[in-house]
């Protein structure tokens, strides 16, 4: 019988359990300190008037009540929702179009090259991309306005006009992230067996019918996954905005997470920041659950 010096003398079943707990111990220490405890603590802080210097006092639901009167928070939520709707729609839509086109009869080399090109921005930090695009978006000296000018478009105030600034952030986000949607959609498309298409073609189906009757239903779990992932990510948009516009002009591009960051770490109003972050958390949970619920009507699992 093998006797390990590490382990006490135990029955085999107890020994297996002992090793199991030992192996998950590092993860659970980290989980407890950096996820579970902060989550509970965050709820507690959200009921406090918090001050780094004077200590904190319990104030019940005041922080939550304060949110209803906070016009800037309302704007931040509206901005976040607008950004999320557009970013999810264009990231998923363009990603799907690119994937469908790459899945057509293409030389392998071309497919792999284009797939790599579309995907590469996903790997670059939002920060660096925002730094580059800040120059591209300049009104008088920017490359984008120069080319639009060739088509007779007047110089667009990308970063100084409220509406254009939001558009600028959405465009940048799609440029960076649609490659991820493309990659996942392409893998999904390639896993659809060819026989389905061949059978339908024998029955005289045209290309549009093939797409809407076969591709979309069989791809629906992938589409659903992409919609959920992109929605959760978009609701937490931060990096791009803080570099590109700092939430401006005015509050035009201030997202909820940027607002939480500012009240927590610039004005150190931790209690209120915690309360706001709890509402965002609740909204993300509800929207995700809602998507799962709606998905039962349209997502096909084989």
């Amino acid at each position: 019988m093998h006797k390990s010096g590490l382990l006490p003398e135990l029955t085999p079943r107890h020994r297996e359990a002992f090793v199991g707990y030992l192996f998950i111990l590092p993860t659970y220490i980290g989980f407890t300190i950096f996820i579970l405890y902060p989550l509970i603590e965050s709820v507690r802080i959200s009921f406090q008037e918090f001050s780094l210097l004077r200590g904190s006092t319990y104030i019940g639901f005041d922080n939550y009540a304060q949110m209803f009167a906070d016009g800037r928070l309302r704007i931040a939520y509206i901005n976040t929702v607008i950004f999320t709707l557009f970013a999810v729609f264009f990231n998923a839509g363009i990603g799907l179009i690119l994937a469908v086109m790459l899945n057509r009869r293409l030389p392998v080399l071309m497919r792999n090259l284009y797939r790599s090109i579309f995907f590469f921005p996903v790997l670059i930090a939002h920060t660096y991309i925002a730094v580059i695009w800040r120059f591209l978006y300049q009104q008088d000296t920017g490359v984008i306005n120069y080319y639009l000018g060739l088509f007779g478009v007047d110089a667009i105030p990308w970063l100084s006009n409220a509406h254009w600034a939001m558009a600028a952030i959405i465009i940048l986000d799609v440029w960076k992230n649609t490659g991820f949607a493309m990659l996942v959609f392409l893998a999904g498309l390639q896993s659809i067996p060819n026989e389905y298409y061949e059978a339908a073609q024998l029955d005289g189906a045209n290309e549009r019918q093939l797409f809407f009757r076969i591709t979309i239903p069989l791809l629906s779990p992938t589409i659903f996954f992409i919609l959920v992932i992109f929605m959760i990510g978009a609701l937490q948009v931060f990096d791009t905005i803080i570099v590109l516009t700092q939430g401006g002009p005015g509050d035009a591009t201030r997202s909820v997470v940027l607002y939480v960051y500012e009240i927590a770490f610039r004005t150190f109003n931790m209690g209120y920041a915690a309360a706001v972050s709890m509402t965002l958390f609740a909204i993300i949970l509800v929207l995700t659950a809602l998507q799962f619920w709606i998905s039962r009507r349209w997502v096909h699992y084989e």
Partner: protein
Amino acid sequence: MAQTEATAFGQAKQSSAKRRKPIKAADIFSYAILTIAAILVLMPLAWMFSTSLRPTHESFQLPPAWLPTKFSWENYLAPFESSVPFVDLFINSMRITVAVTLGQLFTCSLAGYAFARLRFPGRDLLFLLLLGSLMVPFQVTIIPIFLLMRDLGLIDNPLAIILPGLISAFGVFLMRQFFKQMPQELFDAARVDGAGHVRSFLQIALPLAGPAMATLAIITFNATWNAYFLPLVFLNSWHKMTLPQGIALLTGYMGSGNPSVVMAAVTMAIVPVLVVFIALQRWIIEALTRSGLKG
């Protein structure tokens, strides 16, 4: 994925051997769209590179020269000579990224193995609890973590970023899926030879887990190398900051006054990513697709 691609292509070849299909207008249309999209993706990067090599007084030149016309390599030295301690930033980023990546490989492979192959009371509940934490956004936990780090005196210390990064629910999930797919016979044989659980893990499971460990390493490395939010919260002195922070500040300091130098700095920050991507792209794409589809 490579396999499905090969078979799909094999079928295309077979049918074209019978009757070569004519290239349709639709094919030309999609070539055109794909090419335009590829150009749009590459343009900002091409502009970044060519601007980084342009003399400062020409950086705003319009129409932009997409290929470098001159080679002002001194732009690449400027970040090192500016008020931003570029070398320190690079080392700080590398230190944090390597520590986090190694830490996750350690914690995630152990926990993944336990959840996949060992039986103990409460296992499934503990796993679900961990998976549920994937739903908790970072901005919810950041305030208590900040206060904790402040009490520990770890503000402006890389440990404030490394410690929370040492575990990952996603990583545990990834490793668990991998260990679950291993054939039971391997472990039965080891048991017969008298190997205990620790030895089965170290000598059988771990040596075979290379692909899963590489996947986790690539994903974690890239995410940590690019992270901005945590460093922004915790690190505030010049010599402690990470590269993304430094480059964002470099832009701020020089305003839009000197794009060439800023672009040289950004290029230097992106080139490692590009090199790793080109070297490992098959791997990276497969890994991300797989984890994405199963996540």
